[in-house]
C-alpha cells in the first residue's frame, strides 16, 4: 500500500498479544471439544455482553438445536459461559480474566483456521479424555 496512505491510517497493531501461541494451542487442546464448540464460544465472546440463544446458535452453526444446547451447556459447565436464569440464552462470563486468552484464541482462529481445525479433529474425543480423567482421585482445579 502507498506509504503516505498507510501513515494516515490509525495505528493498527492488532490485539495485544499477551498470550503465546503455545498457550492458545494448550487451551484448544485441553478445553475445546470440537470446531462448533470453538465457534460457539467465540461468537458469544465477540458479542459480549449480549447473550446468544441456543436457537440462534443452532441456526448460525448449522447444527440441530439439541446440539447447540449441548455445546452451550458444555461451556457453561466449563465456566466460560453463563446461562441467563429462566431462558435458553447464554452470555459470556463477566469475569474478564479470561479475556486476553480468548482474544488471542479469537485472533489465532481467524488467522489459522485450518491448522486449528485440524488440531481439534486429530485429538481424542472429550468423552475418552473424561474417561481417563474420571480415575483421578485428587480433584485438582482444572
Amino acid at each position: 500500500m502507498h506509504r503516505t496512505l498507510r501513515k494516515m491510517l490509525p495505528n493498527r497493531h492488532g490485539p495485544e498479544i499477551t498470550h503465546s501461541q503455545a498457550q492458545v494451542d494448550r487451551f484448544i487442546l485441553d478445553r475445546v471439544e470440537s470446531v462448533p464448540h470453538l465457534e460457539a464460544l467465540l461468537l458469544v465472546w465477540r458479542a459480549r455482553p449480549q447473550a446468544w440463544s441456543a436457537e440462534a446458535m443452532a441456526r448460525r452453526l448449522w447444527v440441530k438445536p439439541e446440539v447447540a444446547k449441548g455445546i452451550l451447556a458444555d461451556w457453561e459447565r466449563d465456566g466460560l459461559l453463563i446461562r441467563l436464569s429462566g431462558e435458553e440464552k447464554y452470555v459470556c462470563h463477566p469475569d474478564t480474566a479470561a479475556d486476553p486468552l480468548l482474544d488471542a484464541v479469537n485472533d489465532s482462529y481467524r488467522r489459522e483456521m485450518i491448522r486449528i481445525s485440524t488440531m481439534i479433529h486429530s485429538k481424542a474425543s472429550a468423552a475418552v479424555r473424561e474417561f481417563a480423567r474420571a480415575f483421578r482421585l485428587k480433584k485438582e482445579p482444572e
Partner: protein
Amino acid sequence: MGSAVNILGALTTLGCAILLLKGYRRTQKKLLLWSGLCFFGLAISNFLIFVDLVLVPNVNLFELRLGTTLLSMSLLLYGLIWDSR
C-alpha cells in the same frame, strides 16, 4: 486363593464403577455412564462367583454369572461404539 482373586476383582470393578459413575455425574458424557454400569455389572458377576461357589454350592449359578457378564460387556460395547466420539 481363588476367593482372594474374586474379592480383589469385585473391589477393583466396583471401584472403577464408582469413579466412572461419579465422572458421569460431573461431565454428562454417556461413555462414562455405560462403562460405569458395565463395571458395576462385572462387580456383581464377581460377587456371584463367591455366592455360587461358597454360599449355594449345590446350585449352579454359572449361566447366571455368564449372563450378567455378557450383559455388562454389552453395555460397555454399546457405549464404546456410540458414545466415544
